[in-house]
């Protein structure tokens, strides 16, 4: 066709080398993109595991403590309140001192700083439980201060130390070498609320706050979401109403989560006077956030119920409401539950809107009711991440691991549920 010295075949052959190289490059690029994504997952999880897994161990120093009833001013029949007021801190100080009689005043103070203030509380708790051991000598695991904890868990093997004096280090080495100092499972992390002292700070309060908040969210969003889906799929008389609701749902699904916080602040708190910082207000805001996900999945679940079943029910003279509630809803329920679990998982990680409605408070007490001041797990993470203390960084990662643990369980549950639905089909 065109006057060229080469035939078409030759031209095609000539282009091949270049094109094959491009193909190889493109293929490699795609592979690298996937690899990058997968590596990100690995690095992210690895980093947090690396930083956080040591949270679950806590350093303790085991010593003999003589429960000197006279020093404490107690008798075996003392009341609990009385025991709690006794000077266990002084007792611990005295006993540590007794073990090293040559210490100066300054050294004694430094020695005492190695023990957490929580040690005295734990000891008093123990005595409340076992008052018969008064005046006996017991072996007790004293909670180490967070500096000691960090040193023992991370720095000791590397031979470095932060904010510990030489004399303190010499004691620590001695304890470590004699096996007096060791780590055990950090139960406190799961049984305590927040604290200024890293070694006493736990996620119990945040976990309860999260639990209560999610309960409010679930109780509100599940019925409303399902009802909306049913209405849109089965009852809505006008296309315009469906369209309007649909547009709103899509927008709410796409709007940044922080705007829900603005709504909560301006309307729920400012206008309606709902108390801030409570699971109630948190649950209200998260309900609005969770609704789109629930409605969308519930609609899909209703759509997937075979029409033949509905027709059969109508054929038997059932009314619309009866068909929907007796035949459609039971079949669609597993699909709806899957969507709801995923929505709850999303709500579990939501942070920004909750910051605006005051769930950033420093809450020591574990909340018990939806009207108690409380925080939630992700906000606790946010708060701790702000602390300069190294021990808090570790705890932040630990809290993230707890959060991820919940998320993974919820998602696994949703996947299993979905698999069951698919098998049934």
């Amino acid at each position, binding site marked *: 066709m065109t006057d060229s010295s080469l035939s078409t075949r030759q031209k095609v052959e000539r282009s091949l080398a270049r094109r094959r190289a*491009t193909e190889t490059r493109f*293929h490699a*690029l*795609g*592979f*690298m*993109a*996937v690899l*990058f*994504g*997968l590596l*990100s*997952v690995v690095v*992210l999880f690895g*980093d*947090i595991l690396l*930083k956080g897994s040591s949270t679950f161990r806590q350093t303790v120093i085991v010593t003999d403590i003589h429960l000197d009833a006279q020093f404490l001013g107690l008798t075996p029949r003392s009341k609990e309140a009385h025991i709690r007021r006794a000077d266990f801190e002084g007792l611990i100080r005295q006993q540590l001192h007794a073990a090293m009689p040559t210490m100066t005043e300054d050294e004694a103070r430094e020695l005492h700083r190695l023990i957490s203030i929580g040690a005295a509380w734990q000891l008093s708790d123990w005595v409340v439980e076992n008052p018969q051991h008064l005046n006996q000598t017991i072996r007790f695991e004293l909670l180490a201060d967070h500096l000691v904890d960090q040193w023992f868990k991370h720095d000791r093997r590397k031979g470095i130390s932060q904010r510990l004096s030489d004399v303190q280090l010499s004691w620590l080495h001695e304890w470590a070498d004699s096996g007096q100092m060791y780590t055990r499972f950090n139960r406190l992390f799961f049984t305590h609320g927040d604290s200024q002292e890293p070694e006493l700070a736990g996620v119990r309060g945040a976990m309860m706050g999260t639990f209560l908040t999610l309960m409010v969210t679930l109780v509100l969003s599940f019925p*409303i979401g399902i*009802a*909306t889906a*049913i*209405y*849109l799929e089965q*009852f809505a008389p006008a296309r315009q109403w469906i369209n*309007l*609701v649909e547009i*709103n749902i*899509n*927008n709410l699904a796409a*709007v*940044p989560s922080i*705007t829900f916080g*603005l*709504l909560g*602040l*301006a*309307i729920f708190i400012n206008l309606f*006077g709902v108390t801030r910082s409570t699971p109630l207000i948190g649950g209200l805001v998260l309900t609005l956030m969770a*609704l789109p996900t629930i*409605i969308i999945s519930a609609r899909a679940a209703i759509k997937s119920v075979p029409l033949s079943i509905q027709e059969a029910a109508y054929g038997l003279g059932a*009314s619309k*409401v009866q068909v929907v509630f007796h035949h459609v809803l039971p079949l669609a329920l597993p699909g709806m539950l899957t969507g709801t679990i995923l929505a709850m998982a999303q709500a579990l*990680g*939501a*942070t*920004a809107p909750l*910051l*605006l409605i005051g769930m950033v408070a420093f809450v020591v007490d574990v909340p018990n009711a*939806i*009207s108690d001041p409380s925080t939630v797990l*992700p906000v606790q*993470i*946010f708060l701790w*991440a702000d602390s300069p203390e190294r021990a808090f960084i570790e705890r*932040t*990662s630990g809290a*993230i691991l707890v*959060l991820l643990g919940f*998320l993974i369980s919820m*998602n696994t549950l949703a996947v299993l549920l979905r698999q069951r639905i698919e098998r049934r089909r």
Partner: protein
Amino acid sequence: MNDSTLFIVIVLTFIGVYRLGRNRAQALAMAGTRLHSLPSHYGVLLAMWAGLPVLITLLLWRLLEPTLVDAMILRQLPETVRAGSDAQVQLAISMVRNIAAGAALATPDGFESSVSHVIALQARMVLLQAGVLLAVALFGLAVCWYRFTPNQAARTDVERMVRVLLLCSSAVAVLTTVGILASVLYESWLFFGMVSPLEFLFGTHWSPQISLRDEQTGSSASFGAVPLFAGTLMIAMIAMLIAVPVGLMAAIYLSEYATDSVRNMAKPTLEVLAGIPSIVYGFFALLTVAPLIRELGTALGVSVSSASALAVGVVMGIMIIPFISSLSDDVLNAVPQSLRDGSDALGATRNETIRQVVVPAALPGIVAAIMLAFSRAIGETMIVTMAAGMVANLSANPLDSVTTVTAQMVSLLVGDQAFDSPKTLAAFALGLVLFITTLALNYVAVNMVKKYREHYD
């Protein structure tokens, strides 16, 4: 009576009333009377008549009670306090409430009467509330009970009520949008009464904190949001620079090259990135990526801020990868096989088919995916709140620290808020800008996808 007990009592009452109505109808049916509807319908009807008014009353009560109590406290406050500013009065009221609730320890002088009054008031309120609720319930019950006849169309009534309830539920989504719009519009309107919209939109100086020293010298806070917009855009752009190529290429690889087993492993793993809460990414950016980039910069002899836009953008990009990849995957799969066949049959290599036929054909969908991702990037809050700067620098250098709209919103609203101060209201103005932007992006993107789908369906 706390809320959960109240809840349980109400639920139990519902059930009890339901059984009452059903048993009555059942008894009639047993006795041979022909009923219009099933006995359970009569039960539900009775429960609704008794229960719905109770719920509505309770809701109203909850809404009005705080205002009422506030007014009563106000009357009991010492004269000196009542003469003070609004904020002082508010403070005093909330203090009285706290003391009455047992939250504070000591009662200051002059407040004893109001505190004891509130305590007494609250005790009476609880009784009054219980009484009113009971009366309302009984009234509803009685009306329904006496209207009852065997040929009453209980089913139709119940079904009508069910429909109304369903309709109300579906209105929640609409009301939420209205609520968001109303709150940001109203507070922004107040804000623009104090700060000119022009200054807000085009001013380049942002320092919302009214410090004492500034007040003394006569200068006040300034609300030029351009540095915020610029910072938001820069971080979002960096995120897109990571997420778009990686997400798109990953989608292409997984849908066009990968074997089934690779795809089945890699796709859910990538989705994991989307399921991780952004607070975790924030932590990762703050403690891992930012220091890393800083050290890298130091090694190269470049000074990098410890809260660099680059670190934030990179981490945000990683977070958005699965968003782009799964949306692109959908649109790529929607491209008809016949187009691929046409290109393959002409002797195109696989990448030629993808780049010159499949991607151009899917372009509207891909652009829409990118827009949605971009909207997500500018609305992302936690990563920037944790890892981006708080000072509003106007800088084009990604190694500098910049702040963003959402980060400023959080910093303005966390802690004490005063709805008469421009500092608090500014957050709503920023929220308005954010809301409008994301809504517009979303609207355009969704329409693009819709057109695109119609094109190939």
